[in-house]
């Protein structure tokens, strides 16, 4: 087996990298693929709580890289989906505990067992970012439809190109279609035109993301919410499927929902 390494990154912090990584992990594993999510944000561990696996950590990424445990011992197996694993970040070390070549070596080991290795990257353009993209076969850049997030995304896209890991693919997260309609938020088309890279997903602003994160149950576990369905669609696109775009009108009244059920859309 030769798994694919996908790094999820961004320029600005807080745009939804960890949320995207957790949900793509859940979505790909739900489709039956073997997936390991790696939290490479050393010192700022987060993916464990978003996935709801924080109580089961014994070893972490740095332990695996420094040989204090076998790689398989650092992989926490999810109890909801058998084919989903997490390698958590070290909480008490700094970014320099891991090098880009450590990450390449680790991923080469993981490729033999897994279909997908998803790396949650720290924000910014420093060592942590370089660690995260060094082993990448594909890079997803997450942004929000907002001026500073788009500007910082452009910087990162340029760096991904310079590191010969491009062209990156774009995930637009937290889109509010009502604001777009009013002309008060950049539309997905605007963002794609400005950044000029292929779009792989649009995820709406959705309160279910926050509720599900509170519970440690990523939205993609259920196909009910719009955000959950959006993440499931991105997973299918990663697998090469041609998935139609969702209608993201968040005024998801009963009639819209009925309409969708009747027409089998979504």
């Amino acid at each position: 087996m030769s798994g694919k390494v996908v790094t999820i990154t961004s320029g600005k912090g807080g745009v939804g990298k960890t949320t995207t990584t957790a949900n793509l992990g859940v979505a790909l594993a739900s489709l039956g693929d073997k997936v390991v999510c790696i939290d490479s944000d050393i010192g700022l561990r987060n993916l464990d709580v978003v996935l709801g696996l924080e109580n089961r950590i014994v070893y972490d990424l740095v332990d695996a890289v420094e040989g204090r445990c076998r790689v398989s011992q650092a992989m926490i197996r999810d109890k909801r989906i058998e084919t989903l694993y997490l390698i958590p970040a070290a909480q008490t070390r700094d970014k320099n505990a891991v090098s880009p070549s450590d990450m390449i070596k680790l991923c080469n080991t993981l490729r033999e067992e897994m279909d997908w290795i998803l790396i949650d990257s720290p924000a910014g353009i420093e060592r942590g970012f370089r660690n995260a993209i060094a082993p990448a076969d594909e890079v997803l850049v997450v942004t929000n439809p907002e001026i500073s997030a788009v500007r910082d995304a452009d910087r990162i896209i340029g760096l991904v190109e310079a590191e010969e890991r491009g062209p990156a693919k774009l995930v637009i997260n937290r889109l509010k279609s009502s604001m777009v309609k009013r002309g008060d938020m950049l539309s997905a088309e605007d963002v794609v035109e400005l950044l000029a890279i292929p779009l792989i997903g649009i995820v709406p602003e959705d309160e279910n993301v926050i509720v599900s994160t509170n519970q440690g149950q990523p939205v993609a576990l259920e196909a009910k919410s719009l955000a959950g369905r959006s993440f499931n669609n991105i997973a299918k696109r990663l697998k090469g499927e041609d998935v139609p775009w969702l209608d993201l009108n968040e005024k998801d009244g009963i009639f819209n929902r009925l309409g969708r059920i009747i027409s089998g859309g979504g």
Partner: protein
Amino acid sequence: MASFLERLTGKKTSSADQAKERLSLVLIHDRTDLSPENLQSLKDRLIEVISDYVKIDTRQTEIEIKTDGREQTLIANIPLIRPRSRG
């Protein structure tokens, strides 16, 4: 402050249009590492150098950075003035 689009069309532009317009300019400067001031001085010096060799119509001169995807190109459109026939 009236945006470029507003002045052009006389219509009030939406905040999203303003964001897009401002972003498209700032991305050009970020990508080329060329500040607005440096771009202006580049234009001035270009015109100066060319004027040393030929007469140009400075009112019709257009020098700008065009974006195509993620690539930037410096485009100069500089009409030359036909010299008066010497008698």
